[in-house]
């Protein structure tokens, strides 16, 4: 092997070099502009066109991170595919780019988010939070007049028209109110403006939300507040009741005089602890991790879930392996007829898609109407999925049903690979059947099966689909601010914290993900060392 490699190392570049020089030296040669070259040219041109479009689109909305990535990626693509060197990279690049964005970046991003308070109430940047607070604290100006108003539309953009000092004024969300000529005014209300369509009642009803959210600045610099309407026929002037001061980085409530200071936690907080909503994304250091371990309302469920995750993964591997091995040994006897038939029927649960199996079992285990209680147990009401302990048992049993065929298959394969003469010589030495199984078969079997058991552990550790589809994590823990239950495992806890319940906490969810990374990484590393895959590269 090694001689072969050194040999090719010496010759392969030479040949590459020859081809390359020929191609470079004689550009007029027909070969060099063969169909392959044009296919490449067209593909790279398409990638470039899409990339340039992407750069422009990202620059238009100010996503500089995306712009930067695209510029680097495009330069790299052109360089790699038109350079005569870097042959391997030509083949690796497409996969690497996807790997970089959708696997490496998201893993790194998980790490970053875990140290922030990203989530509901802290969804965006500080600048966004400031303008959102200004909008949310807007009040109608005391004693300000009401304006009969018309809602107009031009090219899909909403506008409002009012009459002030006998002049018709029109403005949109982006353009402050300004006088227009040629408008028709009837009884103090604008009815038509040239170039605009006046919205009829039906259209107003259709775009109700848009209209109630429309804020038309009275002056171009926004200093005089904005015109808003609730019913599309009367408008009022609104001004923010809080004022932001960039120099001190504070909000001041103009009525009560309370000062809200920007805090490191990503909120504007007053001296008495009240905060303005929303806050912004801010680094919070290890807070998510300390919450997980020390905040009693979260750490209680968390430690339960952590223990159950390990118990679930270990018991799943143990039970499926035990049953699979038992069946493999049972049907490894050549005297048993129809073994092939048994095997093909026994792997049916494995061939059936896992998510469907979990959903079918969920129906069958339904306490009131399910098949198991109604038919198999003659109408009892065993709370298979709603009692904390029984739900855990159900999850394990369903996973046993789903998982034993895989173990059966690999154990059968491993048993058949054990040389018969080894077993035979043990029998000659007087070992009984059990003794052979314990001292010969099992140790030999474990050599090939152990890495698969570790992989199976890692898989079950993150078996989100089964848990989520069978029990949804329930029955839920009482009194926890996050929606998690007795059968939740870490990965389904991440899902609950991030997407379910009233308060989405991406930061905390990512912190739990990081913990899973560490655990799975450690376990896989152990398996990895055992299989010595590294040495075979």
């Amino acid at each position, binding site marked *: 092997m090694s001689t072969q*490699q050194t040999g090719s190392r010496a010759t392969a570049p030479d*040949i*590459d070099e020859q081809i390359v020089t020929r191609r470079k030296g004689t550009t007029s040669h027909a070969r060099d502009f063969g169909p*392959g070259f044009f296919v490449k040219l067209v593909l790279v041109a398409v990638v470039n066109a899409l990339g340039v479009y*992407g750069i422009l689109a990202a620059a238009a909305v100010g*996503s500089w991170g*995306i712009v930067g990535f695209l510029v680097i990626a495009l330069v790299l693509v052109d360089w790699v595919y038109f350079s005569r060197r870097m*042959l*391997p990279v030509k*083949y*690796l690049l497409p*996969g690497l780019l*996807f*790997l970089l*964005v*959708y*696997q490496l970046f*998201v893993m790194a991003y*998980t790490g970053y*988010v875990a140290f922030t308070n990203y989530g509901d109430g802290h969804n965006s940047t500080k600048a966004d939070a400031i303008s959102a607070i200004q909008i949310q604290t807007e009040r109608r100006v005391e004693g300000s007049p009401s304006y009969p108003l018309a809602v107009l539309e031009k090219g899909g953009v909403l506008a409002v028209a009012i009459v002030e000092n006998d002049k018709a004024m029109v403005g949109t969300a982006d353009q402050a109110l300004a006088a227009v000529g040629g408008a028709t005014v009837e009884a103090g209300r604008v009815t038509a403006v040239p170039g605009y369509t006046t919205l009829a009642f039906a259209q107003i009803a259709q775009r109700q939300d848009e209209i109630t959210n429309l804020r038309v600045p009275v002056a171009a610099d926004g200093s005089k507040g904005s015109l808003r309407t609730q019913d599309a026929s009367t408008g009022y002037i609104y001004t923010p009741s809080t004022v932001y001061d960039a120099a001190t980085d504070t909000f001041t409530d103009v009525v009560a005089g309370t000062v809200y200071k920007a805090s490191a936690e990503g909120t504007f907080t007053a001296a008495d602890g009240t905060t303005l909503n929303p806050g912004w994304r801010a680094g919070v250091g290890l807070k998510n991790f300390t919450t997980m371990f020390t905040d009693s309302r979260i750490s209680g469920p968390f430690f339960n879930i952590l223990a159950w995750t390990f118990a679930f993964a270990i018991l799943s591997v143990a039970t499926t392996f035990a049953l699979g091995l038992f069946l493999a040994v*049972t*049907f490894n006897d050549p*005297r048993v007829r129809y073994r092939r038939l*048994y095997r093909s*029927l*026994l*792997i*049916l649960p494995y*061939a*059936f*898609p*896992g*998510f*469907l199996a979990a959903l*079918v079992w*969920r129906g069958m285990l*339904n306490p009131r109407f399910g*098949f198991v209680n*109604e038919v198999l147990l003659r109408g009892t009401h065993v709370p298979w999925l709603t009692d904390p302990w029984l739900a855990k048992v159900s999850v394990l049993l369903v996973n046993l*049903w789903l*998982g034993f065929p*895989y173990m059966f*298959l*690999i154990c059968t394969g491993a048993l058949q690979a054990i040389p018969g003469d080894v077993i035979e010589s043990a*029998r000659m030495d007087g070992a009984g059947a059990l003794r052979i199984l314990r001292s010969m078969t099992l140790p030999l079997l474990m050599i090939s099966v152990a890495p698969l058991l570790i992989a199976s552990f890692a898989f079950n550790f993150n078996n*989100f*689909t089964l848990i*989520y*589809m069978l029990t*949804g994590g329930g029955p839920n823990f009482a009194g926890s601010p996050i929606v998690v239950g007795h059968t939740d495992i870490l990965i389904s806890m*991440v*899902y609950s914290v*991030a*997407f379910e319940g009233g308060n989405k906490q991406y930061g905390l969810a*990512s912190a739990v*993900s990081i913990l*899973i990374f560490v655990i*799975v990484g450690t376990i896989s590393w152990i398996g990895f060392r055992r*299989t010595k895959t*590294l040495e075979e590269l």
Partner: protein
Amino acid sequence: MATTSLEQHAPVTGLRWWREVGWRHVIGIVMIAICVLPLLYVISASLNPNGTLTGSNKLFRTFSLTNYSELASTDFAKWGVNSLVICTVTALGTVFMGAAAAYAFSRFRFSGRRASLTALLLIQMFPQMLAFVAIFLLLLSVGTVFPALGLNSQLGLIAVYLGGALGVNTFLMYGFFNTVPRELDEAAKIDGASHAQIFFTIILRLVAPILAVVGLLSFVSAYGEFVVAKVVLQRVEHYTLAVGLYVWASDERNAPWGLFAAAAVLSAIPVVLLFQFLQRYIVGGLFAGSVKG
């Protein structure tokens, strides 16, 4: 082995047969009953026009294809098409990118080759779905610039799946590529073939079996993938089968159980068939650790 074959020929009968062989059949029959019962239950429920959980409990009392014909008026066909499109594109992309990478690792000797292989092996330990929160947030912000690659887009979901292409399958292919003799491509090189010609016209044909296996494997795993699809696809008409059927079956109050059962039978058929083909590769230990989801 002589004694074993001798035993095989000696007819074992009576009590001794029961003690040594017969009990194995008893276990086999019991296990088969356990394996098959839920599957029979779904098939029976799918043939029962009374589409409730309670109504489905009497196995094979009725035989009617009403549920199947009613599927036509639901979103099921749309979900099926979505799943097929997403999984096919994912499988093709995975095969192409994995094969290209395996070719590079198998045929070129470049600095950083060993390091990249090790890195891939390390990355492989962390399934992509562990980072679904970050995937959601990434697509959320990408979507503001390119809606086609953002949340609620099937293209966006495919791109996410392709991100896992290199990590999972390169090794499987790499091993197989190494079994194709290098002399073949060296001969072609001397005849003036470029590296691309060697890859597309020689190597890819010789490794066709592994391409088929990797393609089917990634198809099946994308077919059963749930959490990323659930997070990315938010509108009913964009769902894949996994997400759509979950929504049907998890509706506690008025689950359309008959419809669900019919849909489950139809969606299980392609995977069950594919598994007949993949089974021997699983026994051979080729898919170390690729436990089906």
